[in-house]
């Protein structure tokens, strides 16, 4: 069972709209994190809730059977602030100083839980924290949940909040700039999307993981027959197809960590929305991502819905 992206939502400092991923503007924007459902939430969850709302509306998913909707979050630093602040509170005030409202935030899965509660999504609830490849991994797992019939729809969220402990950890590890934001994709079984009559935005294609980018790319491309038109990757990553335009999000946004792969997929959607043809290759987890996380690389092929439908029919 194939899967398509049918909605995208952004809540990223500095990105006003989806096409900003392809063409940066100088207008800075800040996500507005007030309003319904935002009280007593950690920053990562508030960013994720905002992006998810945008993505669900973008996909036209107002009414949906929540039992068949999965949530897959990718984040490496989502609740680092809670862990650090709670230890400070315990040492200065004892445990009685911890607000009971904040207790759920101790779990690394807190963002996925708040998203499930706020939007009534009762399918499988995954949180992936596997370093920089984690965002592309999350899209892969979302597609698997659909392919194995655990869900019709999966909301995939990449989120990294800029909090004081996150900033200190980045600085201690040679970082200068890092993301503050969340991006959400609605990934949907093609059949379900066509039945709803919603616009298909990008087909989720081959995925590969390997010790370095070249192995991951080879595995992701598999027997994909057509040329790659755009790479979204750290520029100069080993194994990228020669002569293809490359968009390096970390150049502009800094370290994107667990959100990187999901932002890369959103970039592919922006490209296809503007009638960019054929295929985009996303690669995360390389030396050039700048996080020193060389534990593995992931690659994912996304294809234009126009091309993809021809393939599905064939």
């Amino acid at each position: 069972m194939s899967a398509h992206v049918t909605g995208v939502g952004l809540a990223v400092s500095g990105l006003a709209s989806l096409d900003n991923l392809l063409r940066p503007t100088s207008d800075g924007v800040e996500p507005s994190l007030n309003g319904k459902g935002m009280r007593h939430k950690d920053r990562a969850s508030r960013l994720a809730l905002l992006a998810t709302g945008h993505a669900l509306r973008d996909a036209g998913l107002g009414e949906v059977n929540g039992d068949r909707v999965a949530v897959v979050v990718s984040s490496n630093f989502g609740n680092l602030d809670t862990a650090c602040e709670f230890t400070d509170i315990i040492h200065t005030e004892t445990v009685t100083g911890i607000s009971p409202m904040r207790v759920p935030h101790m779990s690394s899965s807190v963002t996925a839980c708040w998203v499930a509660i706020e939007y009534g999504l009762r399918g499988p609830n995954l949180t992936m924290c596997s370093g920089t490849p984690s965002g592309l991994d999350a899209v892969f797992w979302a597609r698997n949940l659909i392919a194995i019939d655990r869900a019709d729809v999966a909301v995939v969220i990449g989120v990294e909040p800029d909090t004081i402990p996150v900033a200190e950890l980045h600085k201690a590890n040679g970082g200068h700039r890092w993301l503050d934001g969340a991006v959400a994709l609605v990934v949907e079984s093609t059949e379900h999307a066509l039945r709803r009559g919603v616009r298909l935005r990008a087909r989720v294609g081959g995925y590969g993981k390997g010790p370095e980018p070249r192995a991951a790319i080879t595995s992701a491309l598999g027997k994909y027959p057509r040329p790659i038109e755009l790479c979204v990757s750290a520029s100069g990553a080993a194994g990228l197809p020669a002569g293809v335009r490359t968009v390096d999000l970390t150049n502009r946004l800094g370290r994107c960590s667990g959100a990187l792969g999901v932002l890369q997929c959103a970039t592919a959607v922006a490209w296809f929305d503007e009638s960019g043809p054929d295929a985009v290759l996303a690669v995360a987890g390389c030396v050039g991502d700048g996080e020193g996380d060389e534990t593995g690389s992931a690659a994912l092929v996304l294809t234009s819905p126009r091309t993809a439908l021809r393939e599905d029919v064939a």
Partner: protein
Amino acid sequence: MTWDITGLGAVASIGDDPRKIFDALCVGRSGVAELRVFDVSKYRAKHAYEIDDRAVPGVDEPGRATKWLRQAVSQALADAGLDSSHGEYPILVGTTLRELRSAELWWRHRTPLALPNLHFGGALRSGFGTAESHTVASACAASLYALGMATDLIELGFVDTVVVAGTDSITESSYGALDRLQNLTPRSVRPFHADRRGMLMGEGAVAVVVRKPEVHGGPVHARVRGVSMNCDGAHPTMPDAASIARAIRESHDRAKVRPDDIDMVITHGSGTKQNDLAETVALEDVFADVALPPLVTSIKSSAGHTCGGSGLLSFVMGVLSLRNGAVPPILGLDDRMEEAADLRLVHGEPALGDLSTAQIHSIGLGGINAVAIVEKAA
């Protein structure tokens, strides 16, 4: 389809391999002790089921969850007769807290913390040669979720063999948060007890090797029939009995079994008022029409709540229960909660019998549920 379990590994407060842990459960030994490194004056609770392995007693050190993970994975690979050095098997790790304890030590005491060391990819690559690892942090249901994800990977034809693991060490922030949330102060975990007072955390790691049946000729410990996963989507800390029942029924559908096929249940059984009540209601509902309902136990009275690894640790103990024809008792269950009067709770001695199918529950904070069905290998 079904999936073969060909290797087991585990480390916990009550034993450093699966057999020792199972034996400790059967004789009713507990791993509970006073907190070993946290400043007890800062907490109301004073006890936990820690692994007593710090180099300097009373002084904490980073990387313990990672260390146990490597031990458990090594045990499981060796048990399955697989060479661990080539990295051809993906490893999925379920964890609630990742290496957040290392992050706390960095924050409070400035011990170095490299970004990749928050997850387990680096340790698994250097220890087992695999670049294909995934850190799954679906609260305390994480390792049973990872088991379900592994069966999906095999069923979809991506791989024939997956290592599934779980690990957690206790963090100050989670221990303190739990302490803050609970009204009473438990000195031990007392699942389904009338006077249960809440949950206490435990430490440990666990691993299994999952293989497609046709691809190997080796011995099989047990067969996974199916794993369900869902989310209440209702409340951040209160479990939902109807949602747990939905997860149980879905696991039966996936496993193609009926309620009367289930011989034993290892519950999440965390000893909190709400969890044990919700699980009781769900079990009463699902097994309402069964003449002889399954035996019911929890391993947390002996091992504590080992967080992200707890579901898979229950699973491994379920596999050993099927192999040995013995369901370990709930330690200290001398006065059961009124609502559980009709459950066949195992207490005192192990319940002996010819067991063929076990049901394993895992219920995470935030209403994340997974249920696995496993059957004895013929």
